[in-house]
């Protein structure tokens, strides 16, 4: 690393083949996706939410490579395609590190790629993925940071700073991102994990907001990470590339954020699996990422715990693990809210499907990732404990498929009308930063249910 130089990417973003939006979609993206899904005979099997077909996983990989090389990445600002050659892609895959070092001091972690049915536990990033009220932001952050299995934390998002609305690209965002970074940093100190790997700050939507948060003293450190998104689908823009350039120079880890949409431009589960795998190649080459955060989601439910979604989540992770050293955190998006049995089941099913397939975890976003304060660390704790357990016991995909099938049977008919649950403030004693007794009981019951299904928790 690095393989391609940053300025080579920036040159292609400005001077690559000219292509307008409709041409990119109708003449390149749609026909090529249809072609590779058919050519590589990729077919969704509803009976196998955790497929155990190595050849299918490899065909998804091959389809993604062919798609990525043919279509490239569209810069919507310049209307240019960033094209990567096969040799350049192979070079990037060859040079992908055996390990990445993140975090600092006592919390330093060596993050290594996992294999399908690997006994090494997943790298676990705890993240609510939603907004919290400003007055409980510190306590909510501490609740996540204190989780024992957290190898990293991506804190909540702020919508208000100093009692005022934050608007992206304005001075309110500059203040908000500083407050976010400072509070998150304080949370790590108060919990006694000052070097913990933080992926921050989600409050900064704009490029200038991200730059403003970079500070090794009080803000996002060079031992931390940032997320930089790929636009829907296979697109980027100059603002996102500005973030890449800044992160490369600042020295922090880059997480490429990708969420291929099931039912969107790629069509059903088959095309979405190919697209999400191809997104990882965008991260590897164009964003020169350290890891990918992968959250494919259903266009109507905005979640990824349904049968077709788990199939493609599992398959993407298998395709990556069998064919590359790309790190990928599988990001859970769920339907139910905190304090419900359904959420614990969704989070566990997603974690088991991801981990036996070679993925790492980034969890959990309850209630369609859209309701303020509706996330707690307990659903993430159970997901990560289940992830550790199935790795340690080297659970075969076939067994995982059976367990996930039973969990699905208990919740999949409620996906369209899932229970809302309760906000963080009702599930936790906020100032003491600990779960309410009833909530711990519910978590324990969910854990026992998993144990009865065959998940051998280490503790």
């Amino acid at each position, binding site marked *: 690393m690095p393989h391609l130089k940053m300025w080579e990417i920036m040159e292609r973003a400005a001077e690559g083949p000219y292509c307008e939006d409709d041409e990119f*979609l*109708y003449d390149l993206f*749609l026909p090529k*996706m*249809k072609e590779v899904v058919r050519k590589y005979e990729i077919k969704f099997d509803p009976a196998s939410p955790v497929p155990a077909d190595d050849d299918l996983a490899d065909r998804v990989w091959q389809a993604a490579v062919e798609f990525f090389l043919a279509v490239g990445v569209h810069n*919507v600002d310049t209307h240019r395609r960033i094209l990567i050659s096969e040799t350049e892609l192979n070079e990037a895959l060859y040079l992908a590190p055996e390990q990445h070092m993140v975090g600092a001091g006592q919390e330093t972690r060596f993050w290594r790629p996992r294999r399908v049915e690997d006994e090494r536990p997943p790298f676990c990033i705890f993240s609510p993925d939603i*907004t919290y009220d400003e007055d409980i932001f510190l306590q909510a952050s501490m609740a996540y940071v204190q989780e024992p299995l957290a190898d990293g934390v991506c804190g909540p*998002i702020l*919508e208000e700073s100093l009692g005022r*609305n*934050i*608007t*992206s*690209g304005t001075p309110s*965002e500059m203040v*908000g991102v500083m407050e976010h970074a400072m509070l998150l940093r304080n949370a790590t100190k108060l919990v006694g994990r000052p070097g913990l790997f933080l992926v921050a700050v989600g*409050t900064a*939507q*704009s490029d200038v907001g991200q730059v403003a948060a970079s500070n090794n003293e009080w803000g996002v450190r060079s031992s931390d990470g940032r997320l930089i998104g790929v*636009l*829907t689908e296979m697109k980027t*823009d100059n*603002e996102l590339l500005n973030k890449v350039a800044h992160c490369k120079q600042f020295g922090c880890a880059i997480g490429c954020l990708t969420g291929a*949409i099931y*039912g*969107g*431009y*790629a*069509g*059903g589960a088959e095309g979405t699996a190919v697209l999400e795998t191809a997104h990882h190649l965008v991260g590897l080459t164009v964003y020169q990422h350290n890891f990918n955060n992968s959250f494919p989601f259903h*266009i*109507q439910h*905005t979640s990824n715990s349904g049968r077709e979604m788990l199939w493609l989540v599992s398959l993407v992770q298998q395709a990556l693990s069998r064919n590359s050293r790309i790190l990928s955190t599988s990001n859970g998006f769920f339907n139910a809210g905190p304090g419900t049995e359904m959420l614990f089941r969704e989070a566990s099913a997603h974690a088991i499907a991801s981990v036996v397939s070679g993925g790492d975890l980034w969890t959990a976003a309850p209630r*369609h*990732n*859209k*309701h303020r304060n509706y996330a707690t660390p307990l659903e993430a704790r159970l997901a990560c404990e289940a992830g550790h357990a199935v790795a340690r016991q080297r659970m075969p995909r076939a067994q995982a498929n059976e367990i996930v099938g039973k969990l699905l049977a208990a919740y999949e008919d409620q996906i369209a009308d899932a229970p809302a649950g309760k906000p963080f403030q009702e599930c936790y004693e906020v100032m003491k930063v600990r779960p309410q007794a009833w909530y711990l009981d519910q978590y324990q019951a969910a854990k026992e249910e998993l144990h009865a299904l065959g998940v051998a928790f280490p503790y």
Partner: protein
Amino acid sequence: MGTLDELVLAIQDGDSAQASALARTALDEGAEVAALVERLSAGMREIGDRFASGEIFLPELMLAARAMQGAMGVLQPRLLESGAATVKRGVIVIGTVKGDVHEIGKDIAMTMLRAAGFEVHDLGRDVGALDFVRRAEEVRADVIGASALMTTTMPAQKELVDILVTKGLRDKYHVILGGAPVTPEWVEEAGADSWGEDAGKAVTVLEQAMSDRIASAGS
């Protein structure tokens, strides 16, 4: 199967060239143009329903909409010549607000609104609040649709409503808000008129709003 049925099928299959050719054939065979357009619109509504139910996906919807546009390119001049009442339901200016570059939700809504007979003016992404208002004035819009995917770009939706109020134009437009983080509570707080929970519901809401507007103008 008659030409009209074949035309509907060509549109539903997303075959743009075939749809245009069959539209010409239908006219040559003496089909009544207004009835033809009404039948094609019904066919597109069926496609929209199938998309909303998850039976088909976005590529099929978009290709069908493109084929419909192809057929309408053939039918529109004849429709104008005939003096028949158009099926246009209302004029909409739509875009993703300032600071937000996410377009897919807005694009799906746009496709379904066009399929339902609305005249839609797409302003694209990262659109300033005042630019929405200026364009709405320019095209004599009935509706302004503003989409935001990020919680930190949602305030720009309220800014749009505030500008309409400041300029004394608030009652002139129906303002609909959409985007994943948008809720009915936010719609009320921002002072907008309706919530486009998803593309299908946006069409239903706006069809009702346009009916109400016509009824209110007539009373």
